[in-house]
């Protein structure tokens, strides 16, 4: 009865302090739209410049112009036809004539790659095609391309790799030359093609849950800040009831935030292979972990001012070290029952992201995320124990 009354009270307070609640509920969905826009805008269409010494200059990219050899025209068409899995072009291809100026663009990272097509490129391909088709002895020398790139730039390296791959494929098809190596793909991904945004959605869902750190800590710190902890201490409310009521409330808020974030993802075209029940289960367990960390945080703070200043540090720690914002180098700590544990797994949301990724993007079930759920629950129990001890010591001591 007490726990229900306290749950109702905390829920009403959260509703009436709507600014924090709205921030909690809206932050992650807003991030969904923001990141969707980012991935759309930042879809890696690499800027590829080329200079053609093979045929007449002045040809424009696109349909093969009459003053460009068919081999060069074919190469340009191959680059321009290259597509990402989501159908977006891999390259934006632009012809240049001033090599030093183009190199300066690459150095300034305004362009990703400059490819120089040397004189005799087309002839070499033609010779190679004839040579490959004949029974004559030695192959003619290969056609050459020269890449001008900043290899320290990730985009430059990627553009170079993709450009080379496209050119090799094109040349192979054109010359009918046998390749000494045949690489095939054994797909480990889901049957559908996953975009970068798809892979980011689980992290955004966990971000929604991390936001409950504020509502949970607010519920706790407010009792200390306003002195009402004294009334609760004198009453029959037990510490575990107090913490349980706040935690249950946060799980409810967390699941609402999770639902809103998921809806936001669906609204921009995200589709999941996983079951909603599994998403809710992983979400609930992750929220428990966040609530436990909120108890530790609240135990160290005495006022709402402290919560809104010092209290943001745990939030950022969760946000950045749980791989919610970006992947981190993984420091292997232990292996347990065939599962590897990394250093940042000590933060339950890290495991939440991993588990949600398996459920949402790879259709994983309970058996696929059981390990993560168990470890999260163990960590949660530890954080709750530490938080309760600290909270009692700092705020409930007489």
């Amino acid at each position, binding site marked *: 009865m007490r726990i229900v009354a*306290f749950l109702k009270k905390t829920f009403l307070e959260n509703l009436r302090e709507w600014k924090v609640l709205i921030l909690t509920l809206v932050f992650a969905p807003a991030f969904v739209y923001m990141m969707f826009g980012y991935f759309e805008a930042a879809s890696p269409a690499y800027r590829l410049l080329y200079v053609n010494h093979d045929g007449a200059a002045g040809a424009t990219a696109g349909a093969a112009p009459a003053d460009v050899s068919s081999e060069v025209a074919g190469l340009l068409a191959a680059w321009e036809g290259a597509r990402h899995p989501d159908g977006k072009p891999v390259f934006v291809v632009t012809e240049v004539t001033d090599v030093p100026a183009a190199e300066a663009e690459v150095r300034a990272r305004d362009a990703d790659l400059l490819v120089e097509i040397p004189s005799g490129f087309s002839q070499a391909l033609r010779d190679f095609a004839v040579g490959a088709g004949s029974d004559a002895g030695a192959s003619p020398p290969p056609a050459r391309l020269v890449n001008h790139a900043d290899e320290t730039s990730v985009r430059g390296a990627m553009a170079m790799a993709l450009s080379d791959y496209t050119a090799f494929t094109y040349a192979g098809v054109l010359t009918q030359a046998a390749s000494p190596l045949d690489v095939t793909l054994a797909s480990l991904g889901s049957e559908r093609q996953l975009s970068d945004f798809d892979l980011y959605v689980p992290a955004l869902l966990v971000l929604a849950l991390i936001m409950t750190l504020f509502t949970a800590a607010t519920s706790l710190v407010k009792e200390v800040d306003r*002195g009402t902890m004294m009334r609760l201490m004198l009453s029959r409310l037990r510490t575990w009831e107090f913490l349980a009521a706040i935690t249950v409330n946060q799980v409810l808020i967390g699941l609402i935030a999770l639902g809103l974030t998921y809806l936001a993802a669906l609204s921009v075209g995200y589709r999941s292979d996983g079951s909603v029940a599994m998403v809710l289960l992983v979400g609930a367990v992750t929220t428990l972990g966040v609530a436990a960390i909120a108890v530790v945080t609240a135990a160290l703070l005495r006022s709402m001012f402290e919560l809104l200043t010092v209290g943001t540090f745990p939030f950022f720690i969760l946000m950045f070290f749980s791989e919610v914002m970006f992947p981190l180098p993984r420091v292997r700590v232990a292996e347990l029952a065939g599962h590897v544990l990394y250093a940042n797994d000590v933060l339950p949301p890290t495991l939440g992201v991993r588990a949600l990724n398996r459920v949402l993007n790879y259709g994983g079930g309970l058996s696929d995320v059981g390990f993560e759920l168990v470890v999260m629950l163990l960590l949660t129990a530890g954080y709750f124990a530490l938080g309760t001890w600290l909270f009692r010591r700092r705020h409930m001591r007489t």
Partner: protein
Amino acid sequence: MTDTRPSPVGASAVAATQPDASAAGGRDCVLRATDLVKRYGDLVAVDGLSIEVRRGEILGFLGPNGAGKTTTLKMMSGLLAPDAGSVEIDGRPVRAGALHGSASVGVAPQEIVIWDSLTCLEQLQFAGMMYDMPAAAARERATYLLEVFGLEGKARKLGKTLSGGMQRRLNIALGLVHEPEILFLDEPQAGLDPQSRVLVREYLRSLRGRMTIVVTTHDMEEADKLSDRVCVIDHGRLLVMGTVAEVKGRLGGGELFEITVDADVTEALLPFLHRLRPTCTLSADGSTLSLASTQPAEAVAEVLREVAGRGLLLVNLRARGATLEDVFIDLTGRKLRE
């Protein structure tokens, strides 16, 4: 203003009142605090304080700022652990924190402690339910208290939207919601308008005999009107304890003489006042000398002779009943406290 009665009077009062306090305990004592000590670093906030509270009485707990009233109240209500000494309620020792879950104690602290985002009705009902009152009973009790404290029209208003005075009344009501055996009120009248003071006072008086109330206050008039007994503490020590009449009677049998002359009393009569001090209780305020003595006629005559002998003009001479404020000032001095 000048303090003409430093600590010796207080010291003698302690000696005189300790037996009085123990005697009170023999009569259905509900709360007994023995040799309480509380230190904050080098500061001794409460220094061997012993008091006993009778069942059903209203005890006024008086003392200047920093005297140790709130600290004592917290120790007696189980909210603060004493460094030494003990507290018993109904003969059961109270460890700090041990009152958790006990319905025997209610507290209305000096600062306003309410839930900002709950309505008046909700928070009173919630507070009741935290003491295992069924929801309906808690709601009924909450409604009753809202009426008693003149908040029935604000039942559905959030705590943070109430005026300061209303919040204070709600703060008191929250301490009463579970009908505790002992109610501790810390400065309940602070911030209340006269109407609210009367309302709160009358309700508290209506509880006399049914509930034991320990109330700290700076307001001597309020303490006079409300309390069955009062105690005065300073520097964490008990100075005096007794019924209001008994405490007032400490000053010249309860009668006080005010002698006004045409000069500053302290400057004009200081050596004389020092001579007079052992037999009288004296207090000077500008040109007025207040005097209480067990032999007032002789003492007043002596003063008047001195006044005449020094060529001072007697402006006024009057006798009045001693007030608690007189006793309070007499015991704790006129010097301002932080």
